[in-house]
């Protein structure tokens, strides 16, 4: 059984609208936490669009990596620096917003004309569909074996680097000497610096 043509069109419309509305919310909302959650909604709608394009593995990877990992990291980063502060109103904010809007509109027009004018090589072959993941798996373990194994090394490097950075074993000397602005200092950093000095 398959999805009917009309169902596909309706789903595409809903997903495209969801992508656009949540992306606009990311940009326009003042609260950064709402923006982060709406970014997750935008990513999930993108995954739905990938499903409609027969790319189920890409959609699953999109949900796992972008929604599960990247968006969680963004939320964590917001939680770590989440200080309620009163910002002074910038002078001439309206002019700045209009200028930014014009630049963005120009960029959008440029990309739009590029998309329309490019002669896309659309293949008429039947998509692989359900067997695409098996094909990807076979490629991983035959002709793309070395990159596949190198990915694990890359992930290992990322993990070790993240731990080293988060533990702050290498705090620059000038950072501890100069009285850094208290608002910029995380409470954790002070304690870690003391402990790392004891280790040395």
């Amino acid at each position, binding site marked *: *059984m*398959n*999805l009917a043509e009309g*169902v*596909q069109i309706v*789903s595409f419309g809903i997903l495209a609208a969801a992508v656009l509305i949540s992306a606009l919310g990311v940009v326009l909302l003042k609260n950064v936490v709402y923006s982060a959650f709406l970014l997750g909604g935008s990513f999930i709608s993108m995954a739905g669009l990938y*499903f*409609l394009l*027969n790319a*189920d*593995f890409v959609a*699953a*990877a999109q949900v*796992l*990596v972008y929604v*599960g*990992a*990247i968006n*969680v*990291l963004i939320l*964590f*980063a917001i*939680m*770590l*620096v*989440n*200080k*309620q502060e009163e910002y002074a109103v910038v002078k001439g904010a309206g002019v700045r917003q209009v200028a930014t809007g014009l630049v963005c509109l120009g960029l959008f027009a440029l990309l739009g004309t590029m998309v329309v004018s490019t002669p896309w090589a659309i293949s008429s072959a*039947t*998509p692989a*569909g*359900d067997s695409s*993941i*098996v*094909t*990807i*798996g*076979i490629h*991983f*373990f035959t002709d793309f*074996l070395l990159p*596949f*194994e190198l*990915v*694990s*090394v890359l*992930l*290992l490097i*990322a*993990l*070790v680097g*993240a*731990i080293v950075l*988060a*533990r702050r074993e290498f705090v620059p000397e000038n950072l501890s000497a100069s009285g850094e602005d208290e608002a910029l200092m*995380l*409470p*954790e*950093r002070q304690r870690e610096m003391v402990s790392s000095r004891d280790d040395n």
Partner: protein
Amino acid sequence: MFVLTGYEYLLGFLLVCGFVPVLALTASKLVRPSRRGPVRRTTYESGMEPVGGAWIQFNIRYYMFALVFVVFDVETVFLYPWAVAFSQLGLLAFVEALIFITILVIGLVYAWRKGALEWS
């Protein structure tokens, strides 16, 4: 052209899932008493009294859990095609996947030894 099979069930599930929060909120709106007061607006914390605001700065230590999670999340993406195509790949692919996992287990051991997994 849509060639994937079985997605009409996903669509059905999505529709049902969309109705769950609507029904839950509507039902509670119909049933609950309409008293007003300061206690009504407090956060439900499983019976505990909520202390302080939720908009506080969190400890950077939690970021490490997120980073370790991201690494193993990406690992899942790479192991997923292997698991799906397992029956067609044979013993060599199994050994290769074991090497892949072993390299990442080294990272896990490193994180463990450095105390990155301790919740304190």
